[in-house]
């Protein structure tokens, strides 16, 4: 899944480590989410979006996901 996390981090001059610490995860997980290897759970997605003051849809791109 595509995300805007890297872009949002760069805007705020935030390292992966700092973001991970703030949202209660590890730097490796942030890396995996950024490169699209791992899809965050709803809780983690909410925490990340909330940290940037945005909604989940603003941070995570669901357009390529299968429609139900």
């Amino acid at each position, binding site marked *: 899944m595509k995300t805007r996390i890297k872009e949002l981090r760069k805007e705020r001059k935030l390292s992966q480590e700092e973001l*991970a*610490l703030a949202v*209660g*995860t*590890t730097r*490796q*997980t942030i890396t*995996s989410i950024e490169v699209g*290897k*791992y899809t*965050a*759970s709803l*809780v*983690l997605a909410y925490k990340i979006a909330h940290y940037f003051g945005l909604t989940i849809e603003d941070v995570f791109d669901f357009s390529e996901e299968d429609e139900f």
Partner: protein
Amino acid sequence: MMEKFRKTVKRRIAISSGMTLVSLVLGAFNIYSIIFSDHSTATHSDGFVAGFQFGLIISIFGFSLFDIVKLSLAINDETKLKILYNKENDERMKTIRSKAGMPLIAITSVLMIIAAIVAGYFNIVVFYTLVIAVAAQLSVSAMVKLYCMKTM
């Protein structure tokens, strides 16, 4: 939440300290047994089982000591404690561990090692079989974990 985790870490330090002490006593007893045992009646298998036990005790001692140092460093530093908490409760790592069969593989491995040591006194073939089986299941688990860490 962090206060609860701090208590858990303190309890784990106490457990590791106990393990270090027990392994130290067992290690000393093992060395004593090796030095003062009757070597004339000892078989090659006896030596192997004793050596395996000693290696296991040394490993437990080493891991416990490492755990004490790691946890003690974390408990005195709020950021390190938070990083440790995040690492242990990270959802991606939980998924990877679960795919690698943890914690069931670890539990069965410990039980099989205990069984192997007990069986070693009666039948050396059973001892070798159990040790090889533990090594095999731990290797498979480690490979799955490494694969998942690369792909997830």
